[in-house]
């Protein structure tokens, strides 16, 4: 791990005093945060705190109203998500950015289509696209019936898995995930957490948004808490125990109560899936410690 150790001093992606206004709405005010290669920065905060606005600014969807954006220590200004993607910054958006009428493989490669053939007549390499889509989905534990199926007919979790598999496939330097586990089954949520750890090992910087502290804590190195458009807390894992993180997140106490409720429900109903959740998270935490 010596190469990562030297790299961790450098910040892969950083914003300083970033503000974003929509007309008279102040969505973000003087937000500073960063992610190092091989680390996971978790963005936490209440609904409407500005998390999605922040990551959309990082991925080139929005332009900052004020403040600095640095990539590998250099000031950058992205005019479109295409430019951010070209730098290896891939994002799973909260709304997933999927086209319902298009097939899974067309969606998977939309904007980054592999081509073959000589220049003026370069074709979309469709066979390759279908193969990769099937493989990447299989890695997520989702065995798609038919890559030609329109995304609009997939289940919510399947659709989310396509978006995640796509970002993981294209995120060469930075992977940004906006509530990726929101509609996932226990197994797939576990896979996402495992992906995050794998990306970490490959030296990719990960920015992970979630409302679930039990998902955030096992994988996170760094916790940035947003409140009403401003950073209200910035902690390393050593600085903050899980219990404190849970209670700091707005509604955290409710979440904990809910998870206890689920756990007792799992025991009562002998529900293996619910029980597996605890197991999976524990396993991920175990991976991380070694």
């Amino acid at each position, binding site marked *: 791990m010596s190469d990562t150790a030297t790299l961790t001093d450098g910040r892969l992606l950083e914003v300083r005093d970033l503000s974003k206004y929509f007309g008279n709405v102040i969505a973000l005010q003087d937000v500073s945060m960063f992610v190092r290669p091989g680390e996971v920065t978790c963005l936490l905060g209440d609904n409407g705190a500005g998390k999605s606005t922040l990551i959309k600014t990082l991925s080139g*969807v929005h332009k900052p109203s004020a403040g600095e954006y640095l990539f590998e220590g250099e000031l950058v200004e992205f005019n479109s998500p295409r430019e951010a993607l070209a730098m290896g910054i891939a994002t799973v958006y909260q709304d997933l*950015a999927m*086209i319902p009428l298009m097939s899974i493989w*067309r969606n998977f490669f939309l904007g980054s289509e592999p081509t073959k053939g000589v220049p003026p007549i370069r074709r979309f390499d469709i066979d390759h696209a279908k193969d990769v889509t099937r*493989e990447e989905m299989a890695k997520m534990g989702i*065995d798609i019936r*038919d890559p030609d199926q329109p995304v609009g007919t997939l289940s919510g979790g399947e659709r989310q898995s396509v978006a995640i598999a796509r970002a993981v496939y294209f995120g060469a330097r930075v992977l940004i995930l906006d509530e990726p586990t929101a509609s996932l089954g226990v197994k797939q949520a576990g896979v996402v957490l495992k992906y995050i750890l794998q990306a970490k090992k490959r030296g990719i910087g990960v920015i992970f948004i979630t409302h679930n502290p039990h998902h955030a804590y096992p994988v996170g190195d760094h916790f940035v808490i947003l409140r009403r458009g401003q950073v209200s807390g910035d902690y390393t894992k050593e600085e903050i125990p899980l219990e404190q993180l849970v209670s700091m997140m707005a509604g955290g106490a409710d979440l904990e109560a809910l998870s206890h409720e689920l756990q007792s429900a799992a025991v009562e109903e002998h529900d293996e899936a619910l029980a597996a959740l605890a197991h999976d998270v524990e396993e991920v935490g175990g991976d991380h410690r070694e």
Partner: protein
Amino acid sequence: MTETDRKEVEETRQEAAPADERVRQVGLGARLAGKPAIGAVLAVIIVWVLFAVVAFDNNFVSMATTAAILNRAAPLGILAVAVALLMIGGEFDLSVGSVLGFSGMAIMVLVSPSAAGGLALPLGLALLIALGLAVLAGFLNGVLVQTTKLPSFIITLGGLFVFRGLAIAIPRTMTNRTQLGGFDDIPGSGAVTDVFGASIGLGGANFDISILWWVAFAVSAALVLGRTRFGNWIFGVGGDQDASRNVGVPVSGLKVALFIFTAFAAFSVALIQVSGTGTADSLRGTLIELQAIIAAVVGGVLLTGGYGSVVGAALGALVFSMVQQGIIVTGIDGDWFQVFVGGILVLAVIFNNAIRKRAQRR
């Protein structure tokens, strides 16, 4: 990837390899129903059979009628192909008919002798300038739609009046006329006519060379749409513009390119008509923008974008001209034509909608 991951992947792959138990075999019919062009194929067959029966005694099934149908379908088909790409990309262009009329007049004004009030430019240069003007018209449409974020329907409705107005006003000011002839007298026009305006005798009937251009437009546009990165972007922006932009599709550039392509198609049809008839008319192409939209919709293109087929649109133009020609040979009063066209449009939309819903339910 760890060893266990790899094993997992292997396992899932092996599970996937034999026929998936969650997929049932569906019949050929159901699979065809999933293709957007199926409605147009059926419409072509039904309309042809209908007239072949009703108008059999009027020689509907003949070389002459077939040639008349195809000759009529070709220019509309070329426009319909371009309009279909644009509509799949989520936009409308109501100005194509006017750009068509404008391009034809531009060619004739540029090449006409000074005595007739023209600019007497060499033919090649004149064609290049007219093409440039058409491309500029498409570029303006696209840039205005992209910068104002207004519906293209409104922007190009403006274009419809502006370019028709220019097609009338400029020639009238310069030449005092709105119809200009004499293309065949221009040096070099023979070669242009050979490529764009000629017809080929076959079995006692004359087939316009533009039929080949229609096929060429349809085939190349179908390849671009189905098999290139650009085609994937067209489906994407038509389906959801913001989502496409977020995953890296250069939305603005793509849309401007599509508007330029429809204008290019309008120019091509203008060139075909000018070289075929030897004349230009300020009013040429009037209402053809709506006919092209009808052809595209009959061809399975979704009005809301993101779905459709250019081959379907090309066939939609064929349906349109079969109805037109069928009415002529049957001797039904031509006034009834619009009633038929309107009926076909509504039927096609209902049919395509039902088919698409069924295909998606599967």
